[in-house]
């Protein structure tokens, strides 16, 4: 039986780990390579790096981090943040990333998703959707949550599936950093609409939130703070999910 995945995410800035609260107000804490190794030894099903300085200076630091990590961790490694082009994707994959997550570029030019999934295979193309509630729907944002787009999140999710995305990483911006749980309704709507796996993200504060995330239909749950600040270990999270009859790899 296929197991539900637990994916610790590390926000990386200038080659160092940070974790944002509502996308701002960063705290510094640690070396990403060491952190990733701790997670993979602790049973993480995948590791995710989000490069949040991706836009301009120090851009190359992430390549070095990915290269070092991939020589030490033998579980899948997803890298996102500032991925603009086929060249960026190629470079990250060559450094040892297994999947690349694309956010702004996918919104601006869906062809990047089409072309990259054709070139590298959809198994390595994750589209990251940052969504915020607006009336009865969700609007997607780009540039690390700074720019509204007016685009409906559900329609966009469906479009990305058609373009060849292998997975969708769905983050609720309303919930991110609040530790009050995933936006369950958003996860339910998107997972039931698409036939590709959905990774739920944004808002985890307790282990029950992970349970709720999986029950919403997501194939995997992503969390940062609860693991990063040592509130829970990945193994504790898995034991808890297993106790709630959710299939996990232990």
């Amino acid at each position, binding site marked *: 039986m*296929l*197991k*539900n995945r637990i994916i610790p995410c590390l926000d990386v800035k200038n080659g160092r780990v940070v974790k944002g609260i509502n996308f701002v107000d960063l705290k510094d804490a640690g070396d990403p390579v060491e952190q990733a190794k701790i997670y993979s030894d602790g049973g993480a099903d995948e590791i995710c790096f989000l490069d949040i300085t991706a836009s301009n200076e120090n851009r190359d630091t992430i390549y070095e981090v990915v290269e070092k990590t991939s*020589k030490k961790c033998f579980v899948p490694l997803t890298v996102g943040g500032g991925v603009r082009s086929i060249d960026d994707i190629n470079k990250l994959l060559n450094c*040892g*990333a297994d999947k690349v997550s694309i956010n702004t570029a996918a919104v601006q030019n869906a062809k990047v998703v089409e072309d990259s999934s054709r070139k590298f295979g959809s198994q*390595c193309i994750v589209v990251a959707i940052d969504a915020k509630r607006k009336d009865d729907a969700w609007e997607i944002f780009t540039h690390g949550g700074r720019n509204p787009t007016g685009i409906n999140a559900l329609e966009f999710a469906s479009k990305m599936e058609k373009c060849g995305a292998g997975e969708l990483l769905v983050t609720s911006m309303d919930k991110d950093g609040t530790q009050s749980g995933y936006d369950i309704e958003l996860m339910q709507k998107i997972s039931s609409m698409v036939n590709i796996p959905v990774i739920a993200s944004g808002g985890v504060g307790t282990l029950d939130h992970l349970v709720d995330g999986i029950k919403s239909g997501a194939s995997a749950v992503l969390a940062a703070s609860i693991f990063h600040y040592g509130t829970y270990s990945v193994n504790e999270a898995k034991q808890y999910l297993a106790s709630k009859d959710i299939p996990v790899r232990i």
Partner: protein
Amino acid sequence: MNVTIVDYKSGNISSVINSFNEVAKDKVNIEVTSDLNKIKSSDKVVLPGQGSFKSCIDGLNGINGLIDTLNEFVLNNKKPLLGICVGLQMFADVGYEEVETKGLGWISGKVSKIDNQNGKYKLPHIGWNQVNIIKESKIFKNVENNSHMYFVHSYEFVPNDKTVTAATTDYSSNIVCAVEKENIFGTQFHPEKSDKTGLKIISNFISI
């Protein structure tokens, strides 16, 4: 000993290289190449594969003489080869991803899309699934039955001769996830991404 990872410009093979280097340490020489002479003279060959069946076959065809060299290595010289993911799928006679494409024909069978039972199962089949070892295989030496391995694929290899199947995994049906036929080995899952158990499989292959 020389183990060669075939570099035929098909997908991302960094993880395969890293995992083999990790297991080999300084004891075994790991070469990543498309040089036909180096492939011929190596003791073992690893055939990775990402992307579509067609793109991988096109990749092999893109290097003049590569398929002949692999045929000779595997069929005449009977030296061990490990195919990973689409690397395994290409053992088949034919694949149906994108368009009908002729495979290497080393293990009779076809590669077709996993039946998602009208959307009941998500595709790709991504994540950790257990392997049910149904045949004693050299690559599963000291690997516990029902170990978890990392999968990511939407197509499956369906061999005509079921006795080549070394392991299956349960998704929408029993999917063949490892094969062994004489000197030919293949895994549908990614041992290079399957943590310590995956590295054990790589180590087993190197030790054959």
